[in-house]
């Protein structure tokens, strides 16, 4: 492990440059936007170059591992190191690229914001954490990065902290993901104690099954999955992600769709063999991800906030990825389908968000009905790219989503129980419906027809946050450039399937085309688009959505399956209402009260005893005589 090893240096640079940027900006230049931008951009460009170079030049068919001692206690040994293998390489490229694009995009989006420097510092922090997460060699290091990512997410969601909803959302995101992370942490503790190593390579090896009983593997896997649930917003702790949209849109694009939330799925792929060792765990994963898929798709159908739609879409797609991975795990398949979808999703979902960001930036509202009314379709570049992205999301040939979805559905089809496949298809149908709901509304606005849309409020476009914009000029190139790049990826990624597969698995599986599946998938997607057209696009569309036929269901969806209510109720009733109150009461009355009681009784006994000192000296002397007699008696008795 010579320090002159260029690969190691590259890894270190990838990780340390953002750290340096973060520190520099936070300590010195946060008041100076341009300088901060320069620092941050430099620190994010170099990793992109490194990532792509490594991706193409480095042979990682045999994982490259670097390990250093970070902390050595007794049982606990934490190495700091890098693990470069296909899985991490792909993710490294994704993260570095999107993060770089978003930084460029933000030059336009965030211009003039008073917290510009801070924004870039936080982005750098995120880059540091996320890159470390991706290439870390041990699970504990991964966990650390994982937490740091959460921290960055917290800071970025609450970026406009003056807004109550933003800071609240940040808090919610942090606490809810933390909730999952606790499980993750416990899982790691179990692994440490019962297996002894947290090295990813070692965890993925067959040695695990030998040294741990199955129930322990299942428990550990499920606990680790808790973390994944939190980070990747799986039911029932997905509630933070839609709220996280309170952050600036570039943040949503970067963290809450493309990379950070995908970290959960990434972890699942990272230790896929470990998970695959426990069928029970995989079944649980499958169930949860399916519920997530359906839940979020249905909620996405009724959302009026464009970012909410994409947020729920993200949740559902993450669920979809997890489904794919779980299905592969159960059917002894590979991690490819899920991971492939992760890749394509990163591109098109980032694109969706960035496009929406342009609209939001332009119109100062998040309500896509209002955008449409105000002429959103006139912004050509974003409109075109958002349509491309939606097509990809819906899974229409030849966009990347088609291929990756099809891969997942293929994995689901391999399961004995076809219910999963049907549910997957149903999810695809819903996805197409809600994504095109947005597209059609934007493309064919019907001003005045949206009054009945639940949740939509007719309002003037308002200035957002404090970063107003000048009417008239078009989309600045710093914002459109990333859109174009991402659109390019969205278009071509589908055709890289075999290349990627080869890269990831070392061998390209022959691509069977199951036509039944293919047609049913495309059929579902097209059906969804058609329904969207019927409801929103055509000339005399009612613009209420088919779901309004079932008011109860619609309401259920609008209330997001009451999950927020449930958690709020849970928090209020149990945490604040029960434990906190009881403990506080106990602290005041019982514990502290007891202490005070001791003190007061001491003083009281002092007062009582002071009556012994009467003013009547003879009484005192009598007492004296009696005590003396008592002592004398004792002495004589004891003799």
């Amino acid at each position, binding site marked *: 492990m010579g320090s002159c090893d260029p690969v190691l240096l590259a890894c270190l640079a990838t990780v340390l440059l953002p750290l340096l940027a973060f520190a520099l900006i*936070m300590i010195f230049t946060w008041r100076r936007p341009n300088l901060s931008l320069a620092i941050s951009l430099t620190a994010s460009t170099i990793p992109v170059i490194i990532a792509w170079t490594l991706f193409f030049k480095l042979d990682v068919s045999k994982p490259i591992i670097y390990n250093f*001692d*970070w*902390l*050595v*206690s*007794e*049982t*606990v040994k*934490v190495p700091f190191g890098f693990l470069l293998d296909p899985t991490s390489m792909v993710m490294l490229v994704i993260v570095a690229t999107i993060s770089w694009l978003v930084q460029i995009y933000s030059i336009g989006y965030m211009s003039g914001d008073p917290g510009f420097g801070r924004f870039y510092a936080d982005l750098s922090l995120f880059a540091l954490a996320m890159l470390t997460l991706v290439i870390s060699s041990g699970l*504990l290091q991964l*966990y*650390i*990065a994982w*937490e*740091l990512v959460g*921290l960055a997410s*917290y800071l970025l969601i*609450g970026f406009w*902290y*003056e*807004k*109550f909803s*933003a*800071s*609240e959302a*940040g*808090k919610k995101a*942090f*606490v809810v993901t*933390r*909730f999952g992370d*606790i499980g993750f*942490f*416990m899982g790691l*503790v*179990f692994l*440490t*104690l019962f297996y002894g190593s947290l090295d990813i390579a070692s965890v993925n090896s067959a040695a695990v099954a030998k040294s741990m009983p199955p129930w322990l593997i299942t428990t550990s896997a499920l606990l680790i999955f808790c973390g994944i649930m939190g980070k990747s917003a799986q039911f029932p702790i997905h509630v933070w992600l839609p709220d996280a949209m309170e952050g600036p849109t570039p943040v949503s694009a970067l963290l809450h769709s493309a990379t950070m939330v995908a970290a959960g799925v990434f972890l699942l792929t990272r230790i896929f063999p470990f998970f695959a060792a426990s069928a029970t765990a995989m079944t649980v994963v499958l169930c949860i991800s399916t519920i997530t898929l359906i839940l979020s798709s249905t909620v996405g159908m009724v959302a009026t906030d464009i970012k909410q739609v994409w947020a729920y879409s993200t949740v559902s797609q993450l669920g979809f990825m997890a489904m794919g991975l779980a299905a592969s795990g159960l059917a002894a398949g590979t991690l490819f389908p899920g991971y492939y979808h992760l890749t394509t999703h990163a591109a098109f979902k980032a694109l969706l968000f960035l496009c929406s960001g342009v609209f939001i930036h332009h119109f100062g509202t998040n309500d896509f009905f209002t955008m449409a009314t105000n002429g959103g379709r006139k912004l050509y570049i974003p409109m075109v790219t958002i349509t491309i992205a939606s097509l990809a999301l819906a899974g229409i040939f030849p966009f990347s989503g088609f291929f990756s979805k099809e891969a997942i559905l293929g994995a689901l089809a391999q399961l004995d129980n076809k219910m999963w496949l049907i549910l997957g298809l149903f999810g695809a149908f819903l996805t197409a419906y809600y994504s095109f709901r947005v597209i059609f509304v934007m493309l064919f606005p019907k001003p005045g027809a949206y009054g009945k849309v639940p949740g939509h409020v007719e309002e003037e476009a308002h200035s957002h946050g404090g970063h107003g914009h000048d009417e008239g000029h078009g989309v600045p190139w710093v914002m459109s450039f990333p859109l174009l790049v991402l659109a390019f990826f969205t278009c071509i990624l589908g055709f890289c399937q075999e290349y990627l597969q080869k890269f990831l698995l070392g061998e390209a599986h022959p691509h069977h085309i199951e036509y039944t599946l293919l047609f049913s998938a495309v059929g579902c997607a097209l059906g969804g688009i058609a329904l969207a057209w019927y409801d929103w696009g055509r000339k005399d569309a009612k613009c209420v959505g088919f779901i309004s036929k079932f008011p109860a269901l619609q309401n259920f969806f609008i209330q997001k399956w009451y999950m927020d209510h449930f958690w709020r109720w849970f928090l209020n009733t149990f*945490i*604040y209402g029960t*434990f*906190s*109150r009881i*403990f*506080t009461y106990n*602290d005041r009355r019982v*514990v*502290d009260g*007891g*202490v005070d009681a001791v*003190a007061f009784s001491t003083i009281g006994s002092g007062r009582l005893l002071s009556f012994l000192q009467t003013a009547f000296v003879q009484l005192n002397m009598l007492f004296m005589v009696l005590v003396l007699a008592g002592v004398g008696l004792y002495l004589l008795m004891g003799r």
Partner: protein
Amino acid sequence: MTEHAATFPVLSCMLLAPLTGLVILLLLKENQKFLIRAVSLIAAGVSLGLALYTFANYDKALGGLQFVEKYEMVKTFGITYFVGVEGLNAPMLLLTGIVIFTGVLTMWELEVRTKEFFIWILALVTGVFGVFMSYDLFMFFLFYEIAVVPMYILILVWGSTRKEYAAMKLTLYLMAGSGLIIPGVLLLYASSGLGTFNMVALHGAHFSPWVQKVAFVLLFFGFGVLAAVWPFHTWSPVGHVAAPTAVSMLHAGVLMKLGSFAILRVAMFLCPEGFQYWAHLMALLATIGIVYGVFVGLAQTDLKYVIGYSSVSHMGIVCLGLSTGTIDGINGSVFQMFAHGIMTALFFSSVGYIYDRTHTRDIHELGGFSKIMPIASAFFITAALCGAGVPGMASFWAELLVFIATVKVYPVNGLLAIAALVVGALFALRVVQSTFFNTPNPKFTHFEDVSPFLGLPRMILIATLVFFGFFPQTMVGMIKSAVVPFLQGM
């Protein structure tokens, strides 16, 4: 335990630096404010420098006690002045140095009875240094009390919010703890039959199991009061609320560690069998403290109360680590003492800055401080995040070690404690949100942010947290060099 005599009396100098400062202060006039502050700062700085020196120059490979100085104090009763450094107390000395140095800087603006304030602070610090470096039980206890009592006056004169009650409660509570310590210490002294207070020598004495059990429980609860072991913690929030900034810093940052350090150094070291007997109780109380602290903290609206209860919770972690009696656990525990000390100091110094200006600590009344004073807020938020166990900060590692060790020894307690982390995060962020985010209260918008000079102490604290967050081995290696022989001795 091998002992290596010092070539130069570093430790005595460390101890004498604040004392000399104190004497010089006595000679100064109250209105020579700058001189007073400067002298205090220099005194603190010298100690800090020496603490750093010992920390850096401690030979881990050699191990044992280094920089040892021994002078006989009272022959008849076997009292010696016996100081030394090993892996366990080197971090504590460093902690004390850092906290006092930053504490003096934090209180730079103090105008009321400045001289007396610094006199008492320096007296207190002398005691703290003394405790951490003493290897003679008598001197240990002597310094222990020196460290505790000035608190009364410091809170009483410069404090706020029910200070009379708080000061009295705190002092009496801690002295009640001493009331248990004295019999415990003396029981060991008497039953050893050696007629010496030398801890290293006493370690070699064979105490009967009965003596060990009794002495341990006395010492545990006696010192535990200072370490805010549940249910003897109620002085801590009240006291912290009332204390002035630097005192809170010192108290929560250093003094509470005296308690836990003493449990380790005295109780566990001298009564291993007693420790084994009571370890479950220790773990139980610690776990209750962890869970309890966060839940009660959740319901508080006073910033300092919140921090106070978070301290209860964090000290619970320290205690939990000790109760495991494993290398990991104790490593983590001592590390947590250090990390929590720095973190709490940062907490209090940030809150102090805000309170000094707004004169309120009610989180509902405050708000939007990130807008008004971004730097001050950043300090607090950093501390809060550290408290929530975010990686990259020193306390993360400490908690990690403790939790893993605990799950190994006491699975249920360990898992409960880990679960409490969620609530811990919730309560840290709750405070951050209502104080620093949202719309600023117009009453407070005219306040100025921290000046670079006043920001310096906080920066030092943050830098320490981050340094040990990134290079935990510096600390863990140091601690481990002592813990391994320590546990072998047990």
